[in-house]
């Protein structure tokens, strides 16, 4: 793996997607500001706006940076340059991570700059959510890169949204130890540290699996 090639490819992707990236960041920042208003129903609206922006990004970026490149033939152009498929995928993941962290980071930063009394969630919970969101996003880019199938990618993406958005909130409270786990995520304790460690491990595994599978692909046309 040539780190310089990865950085060049990531920079190219960021350059091509700078306008939507900045628009998403602006929308997410606006959502964070609304979510941190002193009181009232607007706070929920703000959280919802941030979530919508990030979910929209999960659909938008794989389509633009992966599927359109395959369909239009620009991937063949990039892969005709002196790079390996692994470097190409690593560049996409790196650019994707930054394009996710731009709006998500803006929202988190604004939340952290607000007085503690206005925040909806404690800082470690926000950082956990940021890390979880990044993994969710990287997995979707990775699935798109490896399968090249919009049907498969969108099915998995919707499945994840369904499980995370419905399954866990509804089934979680029925699991033994759930309330202790949830409380420790808020207040601190071994479960919070374990959650951070598991998420970091999952992120590393996600990148490793995507790069491995890209190296095994037999066609890029």
């Amino acid at each position, binding site marked *: 793996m*040539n780190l310089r*090639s990865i950085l*060049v490819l990531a920079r*190219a992707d960021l*350059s*091509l997607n700078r306008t939507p990236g900045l628009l998403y960041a602006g929308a997410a920042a606006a959502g964070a500001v609304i979510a941190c208003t002193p009181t009232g129903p607007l706070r929920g609206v703000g959280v919802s706006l941030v979530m919508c922006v990030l979910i929209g990004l999960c659909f938008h970026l794989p389509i633009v940076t992966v599927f359109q490149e395959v369909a*239009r*033939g*620009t991937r*063949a*152009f990039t*892969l*005709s*340059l*002196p*790079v*390996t498929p692994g*470097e190409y995928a690593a560049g996409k993941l790196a650019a994707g991570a930054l394009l996710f962290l731009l709006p998500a980071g803006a929202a988190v930063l604004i939340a952290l700059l607000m007085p503690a009394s206005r925040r909806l969630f404690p800082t470690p919970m926000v950082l956990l959510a940021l890390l979880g969101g990044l993994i969710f996003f990287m997995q979707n880019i990775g699935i798109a890169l490896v399968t090249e199938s919009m049907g498969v990618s969108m099915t998995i993406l919707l499945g994840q949204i369904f499980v995370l958005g419905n399954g866990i909130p509804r089934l979680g409270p029925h699991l033994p130890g759930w309330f202790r786990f949830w409380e420790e995520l808020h207040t601190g304790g071994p479960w919070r540290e374990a959650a951070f460690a598991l998420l970091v491990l999952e992120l590393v595994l996600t990148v490793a699996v995507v790069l491995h599978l890209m190296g095994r*692909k*037999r*066609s*890029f*046309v």
Partner: protein
Amino acid sequence: MPEPVVSLLQVSKRYPRFVLDPFDLEVGPNRLVGLVGPNGSGKSTLLRILVGLVRPDSGQVRICGHPVPQRQADAKQEIGFVSEDMRLHAGATLRWHARLVRSLCPAWDENRANNLAERLGLSWDQRAGSLSRGQTAKAMLLLALARRPRLLLLDEATAALDSEAREDVLGELGRLVSREGVTVLLSSHHAADLAGRADEVFQLPEGRWEAFAPSPIRSAVSLR
């Protein structure tokens, strides 16, 4: 004998409706080699195998001594590839694309790029999305030639050009071969494009290869 630029040993590729039988091929430096055949005969597959876009089912591929796909980044430093199926990023300018290629290819020649842009009538600040099909083909040729490749792979790259531009590009290819020792593999539906220019032409009827020679064959190219 100089090291072959292209060396294929028992390379095969099987698709559901198409089979490229195992074959050997060596192409030495300073050659213009044509590949002709109908759609689906395997011309594009061969060129894609050489540039690492398609992995063969069996056999060994070497470009300028670098095994592909194992050392494909090194091999691709030596290759300029232009395909009719390939496109530039519509929202980016030719200058943006040149910057990307230059960042990855140390052999990029700025003077040659500027000369080619002038000769081909291309503007650096024009967005790729606003280029006609012929202009896109010219832009991709510019990006490939400015890298000073040792091997130029052209997959129907002249198909979109008008007759004047086509003659200009084919003439330029001849000059590259004779003056700079570049090896060119050019696929085309039309054998007439290659008549009098190619050192050797390979015809690919349905995945089985036959060599015929519109001009004298030298020993640097062999098909076994």
